[in-house]
């Protein structure tokens, strides 16, 4: 567990996203949008290729938050999906999640996250608020 003091940096966590992960996530979430599985459909609607569900990336961020906070109760979680995580057929895409404790007050800690794929930010202003103490 990371120290949850204002200003503390949160140890970066790395996740490899493969197409098989997107198939499993589609089953688990009920989101069977073909842009997350079928290259031809993704290209046909103007995407650069098969992309991860935004909610899959946000779920990884939630997982990272759980690790940093020793499974603290989450009271707020959100982000914009600003750039797609393009997942190649072979291998996968590496998502790196880091963060900083922005504020600790009134029994909650606010974490500002940074989520990148191949060095590019993929989430806009990802943020989590957790209960502490």
């Amino acid at each position: 567990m990371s120290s949850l003091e204002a200003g503390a940096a949160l140890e970066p966590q790395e996740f490899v996203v493969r197409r098989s992960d997107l198939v499993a996530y589609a089953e688990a979430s009920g989101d069977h949008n073909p842009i997350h599985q079928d290259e031809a459909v993704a290209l046909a609607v103007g995407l650069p290729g098969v992309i991860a569900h935004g909610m899959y990336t946000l779920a990884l961020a939630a997982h990272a938050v759980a690790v940093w906070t020793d499974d603290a109760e989450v009271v707020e979680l959100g982000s914009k999906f600003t750039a797609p995580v393009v997942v190649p057929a072979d291998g996968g895409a590496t998502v790196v999640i880091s963060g900083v404790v922005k504020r600790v007050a009134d029994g909650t800690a606010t974490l500002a996250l940074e989520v990148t794929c191949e060095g590019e930010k993929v989430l806009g202003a990802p943020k989590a608020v957790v209960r502490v103490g």
Partner: protein
Amino acid sequence: MPIDASLVGREFPPTPPLLVTEAEVATFAAATGSGSQRIPATFPIVVTFRALLEFLESEQVELARIVHGEQKFAYERPVVIGDELTAQLSVTGLRQIDGTDILRTSSTITDAAGELVCTAGATIVHRADA
């Protein structure tokens, strides 16, 4: 086909209740790499997404032309096994830029007693036909 601007302000019917079972949570946790004891924070997307699908179906919007622009959850309490969750979606805004619809929705997720469990705000981007 653009999304009908008169939808703004409309509240859609609630989804049928989703019973939160250990099996369903375990599948979701495994798919998202979660190793924690708690139900993953994004789990309410399951019922929220059902509300979205019902909305898209009622408006005849093709799922493949949708991408997710933003998602926010505000939780009243954690989801627990045995919860029966229902999501009700409202359209809160619509902007149209170059044939792309940017739709804002808010879904309230309630339990069997009708108590609020969480609120899910989403921006959905509907890409025009090529």
